């Protein structure tokens, strides 16, 4: 093979891998030093966003570090597409329709009380979260009607 063809061929073979390997090596070094890589790092999320993404580990971490599971938190483009919503963790769990998330949050300190149970039940019915509706109904009698009960949306 002629010298220049071989040189160009060598360059064509080497360049793309070297660029990718170099970029991810830099990412790896940053990860080892700073704790997060350059590519696809963990992004800060609110408790309700973590619930919306079914990120059980993040839910447990935030509550363990002191995040109150009974307050309202913002969630952007997760529970409602391209919308900000402000909901409690239990309401966020209802929006996912996942009973296991609802139970997890209750187990880690979210309060299901006579005050919030009717709204949660009505919200679960509205969102077709039948298992969660049953879970709430088994603990507190559901309201006769959901008319006038204030729901997140």
């Amino acid at each position, binding site marked *: 093979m002629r010298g220049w063809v071989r040189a160009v061929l060598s360059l064509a073979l080497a360049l793309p891998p070297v660029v990718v390997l170099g970029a991810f090596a830099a*990412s790896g070094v940053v990860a080892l030093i700073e704790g997060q890589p350059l590519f696809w790092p963990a992004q800060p999320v609110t408790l309700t966003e973590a619930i919306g993404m079914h*990120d059980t580990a993040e839910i447990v971490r935030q509550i363990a570090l002191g995040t109150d599971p009974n307050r309202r938190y913002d969630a952007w483009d997760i529970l409602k597409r391209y919308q900000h919503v402000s909901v409690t963790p239990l309401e966020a769990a209802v929006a996912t329709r996942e009973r296991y998330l609802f139970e997890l949050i209750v187990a880690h300190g979210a309060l299901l009380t006579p005050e919030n149970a009717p709204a949660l039940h009505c919200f679960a019915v509205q969102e077709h979260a039948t298992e969660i509706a049953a879970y709430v109904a088994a603990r507190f009698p559901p309201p006769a009607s959901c008319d006038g009960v204030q729901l997140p949306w």
Partner: protein
Amino acid sequence: MAAWALGALTAVALAGSVYRVPIQVADSLEVIQRVIPMPSTTAAFIDGLHNSPTMLRPLKQVRTRLLVQAGEALGGRYHLVFRGYHAIAGVILVALFVWVCRARTWTDVAALAAGLAVLTGMHTFVGLFREAFPVNHYLIVAVSALATFALAQSRGSWLADLAAIALLASAALSFESGLLVWPVAVAAYASGLRGISRTGIVIMTIVVLLYAVLRVGYLGKHSAGIGERGTGFGASALTDDEQVRRFGNRPFVLYAYNVTTAAASVVLSQPQIGRFTVVNAWNNGPLPPVFIVQIGSSLLTSLLIAWYVFSRGPSGARRWREPAVVTLFAVLGVSALMSYAYAKDEIISTAGVFYAVTAYTALRGLLDARPPAWVGAALVVVALAVSSAWAIRSAGLHLRLRHGAFEARTEWAYILSPLAQATWPKDAHTRQVVSRMRDEALLHPTVTPAMLPKWTDLWWGED
């Protein structure tokens, strides 16, 4: 020097992503909890001889116990020890790859860059790091096999023989696929490498026979059969029951399918885990670029290897007799046979490593070829496309490891859960170790796959 610099880049990138994956719970925590109360490492070894009717992996338990003890000695830094172990093993694997490739010239280094992309971009490579049980035994096998090949390339001495025998014994007692070390040594010897002597090969053969006697004759272990694990077939997956129903009276049909498709998976990137996933993707709409990148890069690389295998070197010698080629075929053949009962990418991961070594050898051969100028120009375009495709696949390794990190971390949310106190370890010391591991896993946030851009699915596939 440039070759080692490339290797260092690859190793750092790999280590950075591997270290981010938490210790996993599935297939892992059970082993950890089992070995902690054991009175000694010997007890862990003996328990590993007898604790399964099909598996003989005593060194898995020994290694787990030693790592737990190292974590305790470092003040409860279990993540550092377990994940550091995998990161270092990855560095060793890359170093061995650079070593066996023996790049001497700048064109060799160019081929090595592409070879490293093939190594890390193979769909089988991620299986060496994504999961751990709690130590990834496929990684142990790949490192041992490549180290054996490096020993075979050496000038040889009784020390090289001894090291090869130790690698075989250690790999085989860690995991059944560790027996792959033996065909590597035999293939290297048959192709002319004398780093491991004939005496060494004979002793390694005796070790394999002793292993068989221990496993079957003394311990009475049996092999996996049909329907013991889900596997792919055609474009879909078969459950255990479906396998028994469809192939219970003619299991060799399924076995033949599994063996054939396991080998094809290394060469063509399809099927994966026995499933022709490309068929479903094709039927579901426009084919995502991940399939074009994977199949295209594998097809062209395999064609290059085929050209190399059927050509002759500058001295006129047939290249199919070269050590890298013979060893690839030996490892590919034996790995495919080991996949007879069910398909799993990890079983063929060592074959994937040797595929990358052979791809490097073929690329080096290509750069030494003397085609007409117009062919050379066309080759530049094809080389750029193939090397770009492998670079993209190599980047996908890191994305897959992020997915793995998320999954492994998520599992910890239910360990020591207030909802299931009955499942907590009874032994206080074990509970303390598990609690510490849980804290380490949960306190290190990982990216949530739901927050990754949609195009990552298109280019690297859905997880």
